[in-house]
């Protein structure tokens, strides 16, 4: 019931394997499965239909040209088409001259607008831009406080004048930005339904007043068939300049992206991949297409791994390891690094061939949690000098972490073994901990 699009496509293409040539008939049979898979991935019905029709045409044409494995051929055609539909190249947000550039962020309720505004602010602050966040949602309870809190977290100024008219808020904010030499103004508008005439007109008003260079529609990656209606309405009323797909860190297949792109022709510019303000990525059409097709997303994987591991911390750890000072504290830090990379399963899924092989039998996150809890329940002294952990200390730590003394004994034993192993390594080169050395 919850088979991913990837698996569905694989199954569909398996049917093609072992058949000598691609005929119209056997392609149609396989594409029926593809159609079903796309629909289950929430690609709009009509978008799916057009897509399948075109692939059908192209796949038959290709069959006469080459004699490689038929499934590969169809995969290639489907992949190419998906990439084409998604937009081929990565298009970034444009911050044009003269300052202040204005970005207006809009979308349905709860899609992730406010979070995106803060993420954008952080992104441009890092590029040394002076950013002003504007609280233009006077309706939703505590929407202003939400933006203020986020602004404080990243040390970016938030403009608010309470429950005023959004048009007035935005106009005043841009005026202020001019006076204060702000480079970038980001308008956080209230969530609204695309059919809410009054509120849609309000956005059109704001657009007229402050002339935003970017109008970004935030769409939830989990959106279903209705994505086309929403995107079409927002585009008709506002001529949006780009789409941001949020909550792509879940298991939604993101078919809405295909639909939105198809009806608006607007590029999908960014992807939200988490609640943290650093969880923003450029949108890579080829990667998403590849991922949909089960070809893995090795590039994302490598980048993510690099980002999450703090190089300096790693070097420090390496030194400690050489001096044989590896402590439980360091082990704890390593666990945090692992966790920073996000759910391990989803990371592994990015690697071709691994996702499926590991399904069901992946790393036990409970194990990580237990180890963490046990280390947290230790005193600093105990973490650095585990040999002082005697019977009564063991009982205290086990109780404090909701585990058993046996669990703790196992952890300590494994830790001692890790230390031993590290001593034995003469020229230890740090590349992260050896995989099977981790106690879970």
């Amino acid at each position: 019931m919850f088979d991913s699009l990837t698996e569905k496509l694989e199954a569909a293409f398996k049917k093609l394997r072992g058949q000598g040539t691609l005929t119209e008939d056997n392609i149609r049979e396989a594409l029926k499965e593809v159609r079903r898979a796309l629909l289950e991935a929430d690609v709009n019905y009509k978008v799916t239909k057009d897509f399948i029709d075109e692939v059908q045409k192209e796949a038959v044409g290709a069959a006469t040209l080459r004699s490689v494995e038929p499934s590969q051929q169809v995969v290639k055609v489907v992949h190419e088409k998906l990439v084409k539909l998604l937009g081929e190249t990565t298009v970034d947000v444009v911050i044009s001259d003269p300052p202040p550039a204005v970005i207006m962020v809009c979308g349905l309720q709860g899609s992730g607008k406010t979070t995106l505004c803060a993420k954008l602010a952080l992104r441009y602050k890092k590029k040394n831009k002076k950013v002003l966040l504007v609280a233009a949602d006077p309706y939703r309870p505590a929407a202003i406080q939400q933006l203020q809190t986020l602004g404080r977290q990243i040390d970016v100024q938030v403009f608010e004048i309470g429950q005023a008219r959004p048009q007035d808020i935005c106009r005043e904010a841009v005026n202020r930005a001019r006076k204060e030499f702000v480079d970038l103004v980001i308008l956080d508008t209230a969530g609204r339904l695309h059919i809410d005439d009054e509120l849609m007109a309000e956005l059109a008003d704001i657009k007229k007043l402050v002339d935003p260079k970017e109008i970004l529609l935030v769409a939830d990656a989990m959106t279903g068939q209705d994505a086309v209606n929403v995107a079409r309405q927002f585009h008709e009323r506002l001529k949006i300049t780009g789409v941001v797909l949020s909550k792509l860190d879940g298991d939604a297949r993101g078919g809405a992206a295909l639909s939105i792109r198809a009806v608006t022709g607007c590029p999908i510019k960014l992807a939200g991949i988490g609640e943290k303000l650093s969880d923003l990525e450029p949108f890579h059409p080829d990667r998403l297409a590849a991922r949909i097709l089960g070809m893995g997303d090795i590039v994302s994987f490598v980048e993510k791994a690099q980002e999450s591991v703090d190089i300096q911390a790693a070097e420090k750890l390496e030194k400690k390891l050489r001096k044989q000072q590896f402590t439980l504290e360091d082990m704890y830090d390593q666990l945090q690094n692992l966790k920073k990379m996000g759910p391990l399963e989803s990371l592994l899924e990015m690697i071709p061939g691994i996702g499926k092989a590991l399904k069901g039998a992946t790393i036990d996150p409970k194990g990580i949690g237990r180890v963490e809890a046990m280390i947290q329940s230790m005193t600093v002294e105990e973490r650095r000098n585990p040999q002082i952990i005697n019977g009564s200390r063991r009982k205290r730590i086990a109780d404090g972490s909701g585990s058993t003394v046996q669990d703790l004994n196992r952890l300590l034993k494994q830790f001692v073994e890790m230390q031993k192993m590290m001593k034995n390594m003469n020229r230890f080169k740090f590349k992260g901990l050896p995989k099977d050395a981790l106690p879970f």
Partner: protein
Amino acid sequence: MFKFLRNFKEGLSRTKDNLVGKVKEAVGLAAKVDDNLLDTIEQILIEGDVGVAAATRITDNLKEKVARESIRDPNDILAALKSEIAAILKSARDPAHLDSSTSPEIWLILGVNGTGKTTSVGKLAKFFRDQGKKTMIAACDTFRAAAVDQLAIWAERSGVECIRAKDGSDPAAVAFDAASAAKARGFDILLVDTAGRLHTKTHLMEELKKIKRVLAKVVPEEAIKAKLILDGTTGQNALSQVKLFADVVGKIDGLMVTKLDGTAKGGVVIAIAEEMSVPIDFVGLGEQIDDLKPFDADTFVAALFE
């Protein structure tokens, strides 16, 4: 606020336009009941987020019925479709009935990010208070920026007491305090607002387990009801949400489907009821405090087909 209250039927009228309207159109155009018409119906269902599997089953059943009862008049198709969907959505229970033998009953409000949990807690607080129930709410989303402030405003609007802690404090500790207070002071119902979390994030799901475990120290397990809030705009991913949240808390006792005042058809409700037999308790039809209605299959279907 410009928005006015929409009643249940008004809120659903767009669903009607999109789903039944199209069937009617197809029926009107079709000279007789044939595969073509049935295909059109299947398309309409899929476009309403019912999902391929459920849509296929519904149309297959229809086909059978058409053959069995030799239905000739295309208009009779509508009636058949209506009873087909109603049968799937029917549930014998009263969504607002607090059925645990001890008080307080605790509703653990769960869901992925941005579905409408906090808003629904606010609306439910008013709903139960209007029914004369002694109602308390607990702000256990200590993670998202200003989530506690948001709930506090809803507490004010609904006139119920809100147990809150500082941002960043342990949600399980807040839950425990609230449950203890509600029990000691004889409250009928405690609504626990939790942080949005994607069902695939194991560490966040563990936190939910902890909240539930802690609550079970105060009240019997059967008095804790897990209520999942689904965004009506969501497509097939809702099925995965229901399944994974159920895995973590043991069982989903009821669903609430929000944002049905948009053009999203909420067809996912049908797929969920059909595939997982989880009952639907309430629907959200707007952002105002009264825009929450107990889900009633007959009203739903009647509003759909009127």
